[in-house]
C-alpha cells in the first residue's frame, strides 16, 4: 500500500495517496475536481483553468489543482462562491462557439462539456451574436476525423502525438479566437496509435471514422476485456449493444487503464480486432464434411477420435490457459501427440518498443509453463503417421502448411474464426470466442490476466471447455482446471488462481511475492 497523507477538502478531512497532484489525490477518495486538459498520461498542462481551487495557506488565492502536488495538512476549498463562479465562467467560455450539436455528436453521453455543464454551469447562454464557424469533418488520417467547432483546445491530442508517439503530427495553429487544432498540410496523422486521440478528446472534436454515427454511447454496454490482437494483452473495454431484433454486436474497443500492462492506451490494429468478433465467425458444425447440428457433430468427432489409430492435437497459441490445459489433459487421455506449432503467428519486425508485439498470439507464454511442444519437427513427424489432426483454433496455413494437402490425415477444427484451416476441415465445431467466454491468458511479460464473457449472442455457441468435456475431457469448467493447474503444474503451484487481481498477476515474481497471506 502506498503512503497516504491527510488533507482537508471543503473542511472535511480525507486520507489520500501521497505523491500525486490534487486532482488525482482527491479523486482516489471520490471527490471530483473538474478538469479538461489534464490527463494522467499526458501530465499537467494548465491551459483549461477548470481545475482552479483555493488553498487556505496564504498562497495566491487560486491555484491549478493539476499543477499542485497534494501535501499533508493542505486545506483545499472547492465549494466557495468564487470557485463556483470561475467554473461557470470557464464553462461559458468553452461554450461560446460550441455548436451544441449533441444530437448528432458521437461523444454525447460521455462528453465532458455535457457533464460539466450540468454540474458546474447550468446557466442559459448569453450569446446574442452569430457563432464563429470553423472546419468540419477534417480528415486527419489514420481514421481520425476532426471537428474544429467542437474543440475546446485542451491540447490533449497534440500532447499525445508529441509525448507518447513522438510523431508530432498535430499542432494548435494560429492564436486567440483563431486557434485551431490542425495537421501540417500533407503530413497527416501517421502512427499506429493515432486513434487514442479519439478517446483522449474530452469532447466530440476527434471522432473515429470507423465508429462515427454508428451507435449512441449510452446504448453501449461497456464490458471489461483483454485484447487478443498480440501477445501484449492490453486491457480494453468491449463496447457492445444488442439492438432491437438484432444480435449482440461489438461496436468498438477502447483502452482500459492498467499500469501493469498497457498504461492508458492501445494500438490501432488491436482496436480494430473487434471486427473479427463480429465477422468471419464459424457458425455451422460439420461432421464428415456434412452440415449437421452441433450435438451430432460432437458425437461424430468423438467416434472418429475413438477410431483413429494415431491422433494429433494442434493447439492455438491464442487459446486461454484453461483451454490449453483441458486440451493437454484430453491429449494425454487419448494418447494424442500435442503440438503448439504456430510459427506463422509471429510477424518478425512488426513490433515496436511500446505496445505492439511481433507475436500476434495472445497466450504463447502458457505453452512454456504447460510444457507444450512448439517445434515444427514434432508436428510434421506426428502428422506423417497420424490419421486424424484436430486443430483447436490454430490456423496452420499461417505457418506455411497447406491444410488441404495433409494426405491421409483427416482434419478436424474446433475454433471460433473462419480461416484456411477451418475451411479444409471435414469436422468443424464452432465455439465461443474470447469476447463470449471467460478464461486467463499470460502475456509476453509473464502477466497472468483474467477476462470474463462480455457478449452474449442470441444463439450462444458452447465454450471450448464444454466441447472438450463432451469429447471426453475431464474438466467441465474453469474451476476444475484451476484446481488441476494448482496441483499438477509446477508453475502454478503457488499461484492463487481463484483470486487473480483485476490488474493481473506478474508470474515472474509471483512465487515469492504473490503468495496470498
Amino acid at each position, binding site marked *: 500500500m502506498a503512503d497516504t497523507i491527510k488533507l482537508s477538502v471543503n473542511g472535511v478531512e480525507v486520507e489520500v495517496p501521497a505523491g500525486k497532484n490534487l486532482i488525482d489525490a482527491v479523486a482516489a477518495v471520490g471527490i471530483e475536481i473538474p478538469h479538461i486538459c489534464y490527463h494522467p498520461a499526458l501530465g499537467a498542462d494548465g491551459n483549461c483553468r477548470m481545475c482552479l481551487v483555493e488553498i487556505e495557506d496564504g498562497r495566491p488565492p487560486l491555484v491549478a489543482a493539476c499543477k499542485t502536488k497534494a501535501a499533508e495538512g493542505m486545506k483545499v476549498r472547492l465549494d466557495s462562491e468564487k470557485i463556483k463562479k470561475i467554473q461557470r465562467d470557464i464553462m461559458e467560455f468553452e461554450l461560446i462557439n460550441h455548436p451544441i450539436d449533441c444530437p448528432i455528436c458521437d461523444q454525447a453521453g460521455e462528453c465532458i462539456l455535457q457533464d460539466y455543464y450540468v454540474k458546474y454551469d447550468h446557466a442559459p447562454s448569453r450569446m446574442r451574436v452569430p457563432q464563429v464557424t470553423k472546419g468540419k469533418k477534417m480528415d486527419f488520417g489514420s481514421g481520425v476525423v476532426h471537428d474544429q467547432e467542437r474543440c475546446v483546445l485542451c491540447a490533449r491530442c497534440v500532447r499525445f*502525438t508529441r509525448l507518447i508517439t513522438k510523431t*508530432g*503530427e498535430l499542432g494548435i*495553429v*494560429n492564436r486567440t479566437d*483563431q486557434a485551431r487544432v490542425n495537421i*501540417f498540410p500533407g*503530413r497527416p496523422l501517421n502512427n499506429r496509435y493515432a486513434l487514442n486521440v479519439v478517446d483522449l478528446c474530452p469532447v466530440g472534436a476527434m471522432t473515429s471514422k470507423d465508429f462515427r454515427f454508428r451507435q449512441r454511447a449510452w446504448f453501449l454496454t461497456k464490458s471489461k476485456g483483454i485484447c487478443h490482437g498480440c501477445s501484449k494483452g492490453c486491457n480494453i473495454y468491449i463496447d457492445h449493444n444488442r439492438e432491437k431484433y438484432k444480435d449482440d454486436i461489438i461496436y468498438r474497443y477502447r483502452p482500459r487503464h492498467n499500469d501493469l500492462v498497457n498504461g492508458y492506451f492501445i494500438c490501432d490494429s488491436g482496436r480494430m480486432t473487434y471486427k473479427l468478433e463480429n465477422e468471419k465467425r464459424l457458425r455451422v458444425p460439420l461432421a464428415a464434411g456434412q452440415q449437421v447440428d452441433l450435438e451430432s457433430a460432437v458425437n461424430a468427432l468423438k467416434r472418429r477420435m475413438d477410431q483413429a489409430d494415431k491422433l494429433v492435437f494442434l493447439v492455438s497459441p491464442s487459446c486461454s490457459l484453461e483451454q490449453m490445459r483441458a486440451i493437454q489433459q484430453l491429449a494425454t487421455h487419448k494418447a494424442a501427440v500435442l503440438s503448439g506449432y504456430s510459427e506463422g503467428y509471429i510477424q518478425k519486425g512488426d513490433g515496436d518498443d511500446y505496445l505492439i508485439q511481433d507475436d500476434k498470439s495472445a497466450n504463447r507464454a502458457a505453452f512454456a509453463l504447460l510444457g507444450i511442444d512448439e517445434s515444427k519437427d514434432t508436428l510434421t513427424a506426428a502428422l506423417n503417421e497420424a490419421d486424424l489432426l484436430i486443430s483447436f483454433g490454430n490456423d496452420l496455413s499461417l505457418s506455411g502448411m497447406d491444410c488441404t494437402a495433409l494426405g491421409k490425415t483427416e482434419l478436424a477444427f474446433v475454433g471460433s474464426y473462419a480461416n484456411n484451416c477451418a475451411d479444409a476441415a471435414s469436422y468443424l465445431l464452432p465455439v465461443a470466442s474470447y469476447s463470449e467466454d471467460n478464461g486467463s491468458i499470460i502475456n509476453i511479460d509473464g502477466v497472468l490476466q483474467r477476462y470474463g464473457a462480455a457478449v452474449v449472442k442470441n444463439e450462444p455457441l458452447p465454450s471450448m471447455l464444454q466441447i472438450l468435456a463432451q469429447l471426453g475431457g475431464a474438466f467441465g469448467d474453469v474451476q476444475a482446471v484451476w484446481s488441476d493447474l494448482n496441483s499438477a503444474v509446477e508453475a502454478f503451484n503457488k499461484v492463487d488462481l481463484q483470486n487473480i487481481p483485476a490488474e493481473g498477476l506478474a508470474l515472474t515474481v509471483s512465487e515469492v511475492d504473490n503468495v496470498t497471506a
Partner: protein
Amino acid sequence: MSNRAELMESGKPFAFDAERDAEFERLAKRYPSRDSLILPSLWLVQDQQGWISTEAIAYVADRIGTFASQVYEVATFYTMYHLQPKGKIHICVCRTLSCYLLGKQQIVDYLHNELGLKPGQISEDGLFSLEEVECLGHCGSAPVVQINGEFHENMSVDKLKEVLATLQSGGRS
C-alpha cells in the same frame, strides 16, 4: 485578423542560400535545444524570400529535426511572420484592446475604402498589403500602425493619409 492558418505554397522547393545556411549553422551552435532555432530560422526564411511558404516551413522543420506542426504553430502564432507575399508597403494595424478602443477600425475601414484591401490581402499592383496584428507593445500611444517595420503612433486617418502619400512619392515614412 486574417486567417493565418491558411498557408500558401510557393510552388517551388525551398532551401537556404549559402549566406543563410551559414547563419543557420552559426545559430545552431548557440542554443542548447534545436527547437530554439525555429524563430530565427523563420526570420532567415522571411529575409530570403520575403514571406514564409508551406515548403519553407517543411524545410525548416526537417532541417531543425522538429515536427512540421510545431513550426506551423510558431509561424502562425506571430503576426510578424508573413505567410503570403506582402506588398512593397506593408501596413500592420494593431487590433488589440487599447488600439481597438481608440479607433483602429476607422483606420482599417479607411484602408479598405481607399485601397480596396481587407486584412490579409495584397493589392493587385503589389504595392500595398494590410494585416491586422496583435499588440505591438505601444499601447500608451494607441492606435498604432506599423509600416514596413516602422512604428507610427497616435494614428488617425488624416495622419495615415500623409504617411502613405510620403511613402508613395518615394520618400521615407
